[in-house]
């Protein structure tokens, strides 16, 4: 009678547990807010109101969520191959660099070509940046966690070099590029909705959300419906068995990491092509790291990742809305709330699992017991 995961219904593991973790994070943050002399209820309602209360807020929530879908998928794909890709941040930066090169290369030729070039450029550069740590892991045994972390720093330095050097906006002082050509822009969802007669307030949410969802479906298909995905998962679960079965572990490592890097690289579509329309230093803002929490909270399944991304998107948008409304709640408090959610949902996802399993086992025994007395 061990309290194993199999004894719990799927919804308890997949839905109830994350909600419990989330509540725990909110309770702890509520205590901190209380200690600061503000009402936790007010802050929480502002958070929800800010994230979902009005159309523009919803737009921002989905806009942030788009970033997390890309980076979350990136982390989970590598994870299925047994690797911890901490380098999503750096891959996204280099992806953004590739995107910038691509759109300036194409210029004002045609919007479709620009967007396609941007997708190819960001995915290629992101994949290339992931290739090096993957190669070092596969062929030289350098631990991928260490190398991807280090590559984040190199990527950030490289991005800064380009932005204060060759790519810097003429006459500008800040690390940012010149404006992208007019053609290089992704349509906002509000424009798309206006096209079919729905009136939605203007916001940063753009077509890359759809691209992200297509990627989510693509990752699901790749992992669970193709031979390649099967091999990838076998490598992740048991490299020895995979090798015995004739799968090249090093090849799968490199492939998985490159797809992961490409997905992280695509994040630039949303930030740069969808909203900023120029390459801005530090545009990744830690989204690559949050992707790790998103992947864990989403149990490494595309559907879970999309839901977790939405949650984190709401936290980001609602959090900045609190910053706008209550000036005593500074940015640091919001970062702390987000950190607590990551801690409970990402780092200790099974905190309540034992307890929950006990409850289920108990209720089942009761049910069985009642059955016997009848």
């Amino acid at each position, binding site marked *: 009678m061990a309290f194993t995961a199999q004894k719990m219904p799927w919804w308890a593991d997949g839905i109830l547990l994350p909600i419990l973790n989330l509540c725990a994070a909110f309770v702890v943050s509520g205590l901190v807010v209380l200690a600061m002399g503000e009402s936790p209820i007010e802050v929480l309602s502002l958070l929800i109101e800010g994230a979902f209360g009005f159309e*523009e807020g919803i737009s*921002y929530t989905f806009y942030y969520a788009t970033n997390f879908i890309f980076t979350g998928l990136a982390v989970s794909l590598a994870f299925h191959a047994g690797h911890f890709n901490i380098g999503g941040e750096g891959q996204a930066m280099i992806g953004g660099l590739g995107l910038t090169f691509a759109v300036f290369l194409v210029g004002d030729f045609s919007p479709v070509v620009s967007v396609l070039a941007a997708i190819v450029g960001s995915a290629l550069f992101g994949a290339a940046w992931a290739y090096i740590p993957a190669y070092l892991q596969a062929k030289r045994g350098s631990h991928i966690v260490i190398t991807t972390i280090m590559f984040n720093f190199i990527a950030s330095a490289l991005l*800064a070099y380009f*932005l*204060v050097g060759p790519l810097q*906006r003429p*006459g*500008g*002082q*800040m*690390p*940012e590029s010149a404006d992208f050509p007019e053609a290089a822009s992704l349509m906002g969802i509000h424009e798309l909705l206006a096209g079919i007669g729905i009136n939605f307030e203007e916001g*940063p949410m753009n077509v890359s959300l759809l691209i992200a969802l297509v990627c989510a479906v693509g990752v699901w298909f790749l992992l669970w419906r193709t031979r390649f995905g099967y091999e990838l998962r076998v490598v992740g679960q048991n490299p020895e068995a995979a090798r015995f079965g004739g799968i090249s572990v090093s090849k799968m490592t490199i492939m998985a990491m490159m797809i992961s890097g490409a997905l992280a690289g695509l994040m630039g579509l949303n*930030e740069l092509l969808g*909203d*900023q329309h*120029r390459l*801005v*230093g*530090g*545009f990744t*803002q830690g989204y690559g790291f949050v992707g790790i929490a998103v992947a864990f909270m989403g149990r490494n399944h595309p559907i879970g990742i999309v839901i977790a991304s939405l949650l984190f998107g709401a936290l980001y948008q609602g959090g*900045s809305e609190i*910053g*706008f409304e209550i*000036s005593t709640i*500074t*940015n640091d408090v919001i*970062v702390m709330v987000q950190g607590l959610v990551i801690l409970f949902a990402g780092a200790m996802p099974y905190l309540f699992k034992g307890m929950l399993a006990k409850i289920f086992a108990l209720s089942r025994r009761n049910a069985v017991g009642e059955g016997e007395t009848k």
Partner: protein
Amino acid sequence: MTKLLKAIAGTMLASLLVTSAVLAADFKPVLLYDIGGKFDKSFNEAARNGAEAFKAKYGIPYRDFEPSSETQYEQALKRFARRKADLIVAVGVGYSVAVRNVARKYPNMRFTVIDAIVDLPNVQSITFKENEGSFLVGMIAAMKSKSDKLGFIGGMDIPLIRRFEAGYRQGAMYVRDNLEFVENYVGTTPTAWNDPIKASEMARSQYARGVDIIFSAAGPSGLGVIQAAKDNGKLAIGVDSNQNHVAPGYVLTSMLKRVDLAVLQAMQEAKDGTWKPGHRVMTLKDGGVDYAMDDHNAGLIDDAMKAKLEAARAKIISGEIIVGDIKGSNAGH
């Protein structure tokens, strides 16, 4: 008929609301800080002090926001522009492109941007002659230095900060020319404003090389320089706000950049209806920049030094001394 009456009453009410929006009670100013936070004891805090002074004077509250990254500049501007503020004051060179984008989108909204120049009919740009104030603190450093080695630590390596360095050098060399200079920049991205640890390491290494006075133009990072001065028993020169109190006895003076005055003035003008777009430069002459004197550094700067400084001030104002500038330090957008 009643519909028509209602419509007329509605428009009258609306126009009443519009006119009352100009009245003090409904005046809604917004202040957006740069990265580093409003309590940085330097640039952002100076801006906050200006808004606080406005609040104290007229009893009109203001809203403020601290962006956590460059990408939030535009989000914050858009958000307040849509919520119909009466004036949005954005402080920091990083806002230039963001203000340009948002001001184009909201042509009826008034923006004041400090440290950047945005050439649009609804934007007021305020910049400072930092080189003139830096000239004076450079003189103080040269008069005070015993080791003949002066240090400079800049935040982000951009022309705007190079301009502090240029003024500082010129001012020091104006006093005497047997000086050596050591300079470092914390970084090349906006995170350089917010890295006191690295700035402190740089200051320690400069002191170890024989420098005895360091001028730091690095926003919040400068607090690390002041800490290093205290730990090493050397001197530092603060920037933007009066930082003499941060470590009394170790802060020789502070190069005041009166961001507070600029913020206060912009808000006052917008309230009184005298706000005008365009570019305004705040100089030594109109008190936009200066060196700080108070109880904390009274023992460090004697009357003979002050006399020399005042003489130089008069010469700068009269145009007898021309303080050099750095190309590109205030490029328009």
